């Protein structure tokens, strides 16, 4: 079995990635995730055994490219329906937190 020296992810890297994904983690979770992620990434190394030279990637199994339709106006939801699930709203707008 391969040793897990190849791709050790550090706690600092996990903090950085979690920040990119906009997910706050507790100190305890950072510790647990670091250990779990290293085991999972180690398992992911398995695909490196496959020779994929000259093999194209498959993004999608159907091979459909560019589905088009007539540019016609269809039904859309009224404003109150659209805002119905928003936790905070004001004067017909979604209310966002402070940006700057």
């Amino acid at each position: 079995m391969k040793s897990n020296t190849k791709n050790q992810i550090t706690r600092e890297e996990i903090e950085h990635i979690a920040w990119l994904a906009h997910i706050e983690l507790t100190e305890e979770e950072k510790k647990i995730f670091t250990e779990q992620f290293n085991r999972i990434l180690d398992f992911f190394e398995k695909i490196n055994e496959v020779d994929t030279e000259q093999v194209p990637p498959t993004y999608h199994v159907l091979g459909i490219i560019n589905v088009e339709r007539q540019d016609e106006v269809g039904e859309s939801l009224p404003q109150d329906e659209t805002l119905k699930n928003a936790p905070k709203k004001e004067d017909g707008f979604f209310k966002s937190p402070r940006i700057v």
Partner: protein
Amino acid sequence: MPRHYQISALEATWLIRNQELSCEEYILSIFERIDKTEGKIHAFITLLREQALEKAREVDKLVKKREGQGILSGIPIAIKDVICTNGVRTTCSSRMLKDYVPPYDATVVRKLNSEGAIIVGKTNMDEFAMGSTTETSFFGPTRNPWDLNKVPGGSSGGSAAAVIAEDVPLALGSDTGGSIRCPASYCSVVGLKPTYGLVSRYGLISYANSLEQIGPFARTVEDCALLLTIISGHDDKDSTSANLSSKDYVSLLKEDDVNGLRIGVPHEFFGEGVDDDVKDTVWEAILKLESLGCTYDEVSVSSVSYALAAYYIIAMSEASSNLARYDGLRFGFRQERDEGDWATVYAKNRKEGFGAEVRRRIILGTYALSAGYYDQYYLKALKVRTILRRDFERALKEFDVLIGPTMPVLPFGIGEKIDDPLTLYMCDVLTVPANITGYPAMSIPCGFKNNLPVGMQIMGKPFDEETVLRVAHLFEQNTDHNLRRPNL
């Protein structure tokens, strides 16, 4: 004489149409049954008693007037809570969406409604369909009706449990890496993941959009075929929907040409990590099919050993993108007070709104897509996907279907594996190839070990669901595993 709640969907359609069964009595019987079982198994998140009974009375009126009846007129069905229902909360078993009420119906729900089906409730699942045990639900786990201390499988555990508990004859689930077939196997019901593109995903809340499909659960292959007939077909609202003419899978079942049908048995499906009990039971089933006129031969699909890693890389990458929409602003969980700047508020909403497994997959997916790792993980996994597709295409040139176990191990205990994500991922090893390739695959009951069900997986060629269903039907007609019921 079976009780009303026990009859099959197909039989119930005849009885209702011929006024031999009042739809109101039928639906009352269904809710009596749910009242009896729900406290034990917790299959549902939301029940729609009043709405369902009202609709049942309307069906009875229409039947008397002999008008306006759909194919599923008066038939009760449960819907996995990842599929949007207009005006009925759709939670994905997540705190993030616990109060989310969709303002529209998924295409499959619209089709069911227009055929007269009666939605009795929304079923429990793993949060955002990420899991194979139904333990990660914000609303608490579903229990396996065969042994209440065991998991029912997942992520569509509520749908499968409700069907075998005789709460409903039909249910819908979704399958991204085995989420229909795994609980079908663990609960001893019939469950089918259709070919990618056969069923519209419009209104299915996305987890990994290039892998997942909505599909049917039932207690008989015939009922499964009936539900597939209703939900399949092209939809303009899903750009990945295949443009094919629709089929009547129930009448296709009756075409009697299973003789000489070629079964391929990939020996990788019986490899390391698969329990001997499971192997033996599935082999017995294959020999049974041989005795019924099929032929079989072993085949190798060697790239299967890379499927699981490739699957998780692709699924997590897609999840990180699909779940970026949950910011707590337009819908979803938002903290009472906004503390800090926009990015901080967003990160706090997502911390509180998502459970651990969802956060794990989003963060790992973000990692796999990030600069410096994209080629190594995501792109590499997509190339492995090409190799897998070629391998299965080759195997299915020689054979009509491929057969093996659905799950490598028997249903295990609630709490037994949940703290060890990687061990849990390993349980998906036999189901993920169908999602990576897009091919159809179903699980049917094929026996019991230690009073726990074993499921057999039948994989077919793309858009050849009828052959998969026909093999399943042949087996079911000549065995009695599907007639066993748990004591509830």
